[in-house]
């Protein structure tokens, strides 16, 4: 399962809720304002780090760049472009957007 989250952790709790529900071996893709959850010092940093051994975490590179956050990505987060986004959707048998 690929989970897609698009809200900043300081706006809504969808990142935390998603990480709480994601099964081991699933993937979480952070897009739009949710890319803040992939950066050092964000309020969900501990939860993201705690999830990373069991859940693969990806962040959309263009959305990180648009927010000036490209240099603050947490270790272990995989940065992908839109082509990588498409590949992630194709690789996983289903996807869920946490709106």
């Amino acid at each position: 399962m690929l989970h897609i989250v698009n809200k900043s952790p300081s706006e809504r709790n969808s990142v935390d809720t998603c990480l709480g529900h994601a099964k081991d071996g699933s993937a979480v893709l952070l897009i739009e304002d949710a890319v803040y959850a992939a950066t050092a010092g964000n309020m969900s940093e501990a939860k993201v780090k705690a999830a990373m051994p069991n859940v693969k975490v990806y962040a959309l590179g263009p959305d990180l760049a648009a927010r000036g956050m490209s240099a603050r990505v947490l270790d272990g987060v995989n940065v992908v472009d839109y082509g990588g986004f498409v590949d992630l959707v194709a690789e996983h048998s289903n996807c869920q957007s946490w709106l």
Partner: protein
Amino acid sequence: MKFGILVNEGPYQHQASDSAYLFAKACLAKGHEIFRVFFYHDGVNNASRLTVPPADDRHIVNRWSALAQEHNLDLVVCIAAAQRRGMMDDNEAKRQGKDASNIAPAFRISGLGQLVEAGIQCDRLVTFGD
């Protein structure tokens, strides 16, 4: 692979219309098929022909139309969501006694069944919204 895309947010609101468009382009660049893009809720405003953004801003509506015409995409607007928001084609305008229509080229108005069909026919259905 066959992709379906659902857009639930209006243009120039947050980022869903842009994300959906760039995702659609990336799908096509990778050789995937886009079975349908379905516009629901405030997403129907992506189809307004009367949209006039400032000249130095992206034109979200024209961009959808151009992509659809280039790749023969099926852009479908939910009829109930459209009527609530004053979005109509010529037939609907006539049927409702309105003096104008405002749907942009390459979009068509149809029902929720089109979304259900996309869910059945597509290998993946990706939702973009608020």
